[in-house]
């Protein structure tokens, strides 16, 4: 059994039913973009807690750094200078895994148990099961998972599942000096977010709102946006993200059949792995996947 409060409710490429005896509360990390000052303390805390370090890079003419998510940087701040009706606004969005209720990565993943979802909603990668195929990257509507050049496995934000399991908030939420990141049950977070939206409206942000997109079943990382009608201005936050038709199909009809093929494929891959290192799913599935794209 997983750690207390981390009952696995979904497991990639698996048909074994999930346990359902216990019920934990759904959690949400709420990121209030209107309170974020872009200090990157959350980025630092993420590296500290997870023991990840990117290389010391270079400046690319912007304040963003590292420039993109990597297998070592599971969250980065995205700075957008936008002209709105109010004049110049500097919108700073903390980017990272959204922990979708309906996770495209998990659905796309052909490796049994490489991606799991806990009953509290956290979507977690179990890298020891990851075969490095990268399908999760294609399956993610937010372009989050990153393949490591070092071990050929895919990494992303865990929502600090290890901390949450023992009753702590995620490291970024703990660190954020302005309270732009808060963590709690989904109900509480929605309530909190509604208060924030009301405050923003009173300050003239008529379109302030909560970002919790339905196309992915809602998310366990939500944003408060000053301009919820235009998520795209926040460094390309998708307006209506959804799990691609292919992945849905893959899960709905094809996967039960394909899983058998996959099981064989993975079995083959296992022998392949011990002799040649990490590799991929069966070529048939890969081809199928590509064709659909």
């Amino acid at each position, binding site marked *: 059994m997983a750690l207390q409060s981390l009952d696995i409710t979904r497991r990639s490429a698996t048909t074994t039913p999930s346990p359902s005896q216990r019920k934990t509360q759904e959690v949400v990390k709420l990121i209030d973009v209107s309170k974020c*000052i872009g200090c990157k303390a959350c980025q630092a805390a993420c590296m500290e807690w997870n023991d990840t370090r990117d290389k010391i890079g270079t400046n690319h003419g912007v304040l963003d750094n590292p420039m993109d998510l990597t297998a070592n940087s599971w969250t980065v701040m995205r700075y957008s200078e936008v002209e709105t009706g109010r004049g110049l606004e500097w919108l700073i969005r903390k980017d990272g895994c959204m922990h979708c209720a309906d996770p495209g990565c998990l659905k796309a993943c052909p490796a049994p148990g490489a991606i799991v979802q806990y009953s509290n909603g956290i979507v977690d990668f179990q890298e020891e099961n990851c075969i490095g195929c990268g399908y999760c990257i294609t399956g993610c509507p937010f372009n989050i998972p990153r393949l490591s050049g070092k071990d050929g496995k895919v990494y992303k934000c865990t929502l600090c599942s290890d901390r949450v399991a023992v009753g702590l908030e995620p490291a970024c939420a703990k660190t954020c000096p302005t309270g732009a990141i808060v963590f709690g049950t989904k109900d509480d977070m929605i309530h909190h977010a509604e208060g924030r939206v009301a405050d923003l409206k009173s300050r003239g942000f008529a379109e302030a709102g909560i970002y919790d997109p339905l196309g992915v079943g809602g998310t366990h990382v939500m944003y408060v946006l000053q301009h919820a009608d235009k998520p795209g201005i926040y460094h390309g936050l998708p307006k209506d993200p959804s799990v691609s038709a292919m992945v849905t199909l893959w899960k709905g009809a094809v996967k039960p059949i394909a899983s058998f093929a996959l099981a064989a494929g993975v079995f083959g891959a296992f022998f392949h792995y011990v002799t040649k290192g990490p590799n991929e799913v069966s070529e048939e599935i890969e081809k199928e996947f590509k064709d659909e794209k």
Partner: protein
Amino acid sequence: MTNHWVDIKNANVIIVMGGNAAEAHPCGFKWVTEAKAHNHATFVVVDPRFTRSAAVADLYVPLRTGTDIAFLGGVINYLLSRDKLQHEYVKAYTNAPFIVKEGYEFNDGLFSGYDEAARTYDKSTWAYEAGPDGYARLDVTMQHPRCVLQLLKKHYSRYTPEAVSNICGTPGDTFLKVCELIATTSVPDRTLTFLYAVGWTQHSVGSQMIRTAAMVQLLLGNVGMAGGGVNALRGHSNIQGLTDLGLMSNLLPGYLTLPGEKETDYRKYIGARAFKPLRPGQMDYWQNYEKFHVSLMKSWFGNAATKDNNWCFDWLPKLDKIYDVLQAFELMHQGKLNGYFCQGFNPLASIPNKAKLTAALSRLKYLVVIDPLDTETSCFWENHGKYNDVDPARIQTEVIRMPSTCFAEENGSLTNSGRWLQWHYRGAPPPGDAKPDAEIIAGIFLKLRDMYRKEGGAFPDPILSLTWDYDIPHSPAPEELAKEYNGKALADLADPKDPAKAVLRKGQQLDGFIQLRADGSTSCGCWIFSGAWTEKGNMMARRDNSDPSGLGNTLGWAFAWPANRRILYNRASCDPSGKPWDPNRRLVYWDGSKWTGFDVPDFKPDSAPSEGMGPFIMQPEGVGRLFALDKMAEGPFPEHYEPFETPIGTNPLHPKVINNPAARVFRDDMKDFGKSRDFPYAATSYRVTEHFHFWTKHTRISSILQPEQYVEIGEDLAKEKGIKAGDRVKVRSKRGFIEAVAVVTKRIRPLQVNGETVHHVGIPIHWGFKGIARNGYLANTLTPFVGDANTQTPEFKSFLVNIEKA
């Protein structure tokens, strides 16, 4: 801070100006977000750049760097001309009704008494008119043409919205919007807080910028109020403690001052500091100066300090001038200062004009550096290619480095911006041979004392008589030092109300500075810290955050100087009758027999309101000063002077007096100031959140988050110069150049100033030739060697550069 971090949450309007709190103080900045969330506060940022603070502001207001006095002077003019004052407060608690001496004048940029050759003022006319009783004269109707209010009106009548806009480049309607917002806090139940930092101090007129804000707050009745005040956000975790302990060339601990070279008479020295009251019935707390001073001398020299030898007054150095860091490097540069101890300080990186500093350091015989890090200063003689292009063979300075601990490797207290002394415990042992600073200094001292004992010397007395009774002489413990600052009774102290009783027995720790005596029966290393370590123990280590008023004045949390008081001048939060102006901001009040409340009253506890004592008890007249008398170098009212390097080459208010006429400029530095025809852009230097000064380029995570030196320019200037984001650019001032990556941004906009377009170039300071971040140029290669006329803090914030593609 007059107030403290948590108190920011009580404000209705928050103005960040002369600082960038979100960027440089992200943790304290949370109280701004609290004020917005729970007090529906309006948050305004006034800055040449649209900063990280501006990113979450309700209103961003651009202004040209170095023009804050013009802006705030315009605010004063607005408040006065529209009669938006807290009238009762202004009348009772400021010197607005005081009559100024005949002869005081201001004409064409100069106040009366200017001596051009000496660049100083004879300040004798900057004074009150004395009445027949010897006290200052008042006109409570405030109609007298020479009363402060009328002079104030006259002085700032020139600061019209048009003049402000013309000097600052702030669009007129935006300026008026800010004025309106500020004016809403002139009512008793709304407050404004100003949060500033080195964006005000680091100008040749820095102190006067801060004063202008203080004047605005006095006119609005916002000083002494919860959610009000003028709040300096300090840039290091313990820089407040550094100033408190007097680590300035002209200060003694607790803001006592060293004598000047003419002050050889002890009584006169005390007399000049223990001011006589300027109005009847005033507390005039500095009258106690001698108690603080004698207790300090007893703490230093113990039994050697006696009444007969004037408590060792002759042993104190007598200053011919102040030895601020610019002065020290000037002397070093002239070859007149040949040995330098550099403790927890990286001047090569953090003082202006690197070329001059390198030349100066190269003329030293020896340089001792005490620091946890491999600083640029300690390696000034190493060649690091273009970043530090020196020839080591030609530098003869002997450099001695002594590794010290950092804060997390020792116990001690850090004093935050809100004057809280918070005790902390060591988190890890120091690496290698690193030793606490106290141990290093103790080692040097003991060795010196030994040499003086054995070999004698010109003047061994102060060294041989210095109190040194630590348990382990070569390693004084932080706890012992803290107790020494607090002070103790050297004899049984009789109760002033009942001499038969003793309030303290000999040897006991003092309860606070109220117990200090001028007769040698108390010792105290820093009077304002008295109360921090009493017989009850270490008050700084207290962690009770109960907050009965909800205003955040947690009296059981740590210790705040003075006397655990959280909000200075809090008597002014009540009307003259002793009732709080605002029932929701009840800090203290008169309960019929004494002052009491949720903060430690900043007042004589039993002085009934009817006695008429003023709330500003440190001032001899008991009220806040709109007119500063002779306390400022460049005038009793702040006046707009251009930075020494001005992009417009004139002062629109008085073209004959362009810069601060009282600022000290060394002869050789004058020629190093650039002109706008060669260096057309207004530059300003600053910190960014990812880094802390020149330290965190030594740490991996900070270096990952902001790895490489950059400068910021606006899109228009970039276009003019053909610079794209990510290009390498060369930024040049009269004193040298740096190269960096260009960040091209919408957040810096050209401003229309006096008929010209002024572009700003933003220069973050954090890179250098040591550490693990990408090597870069020291930003202070560019900055000018001139400081504020009162404090000599260098003008890092306003200078001129040119920029081109590298």
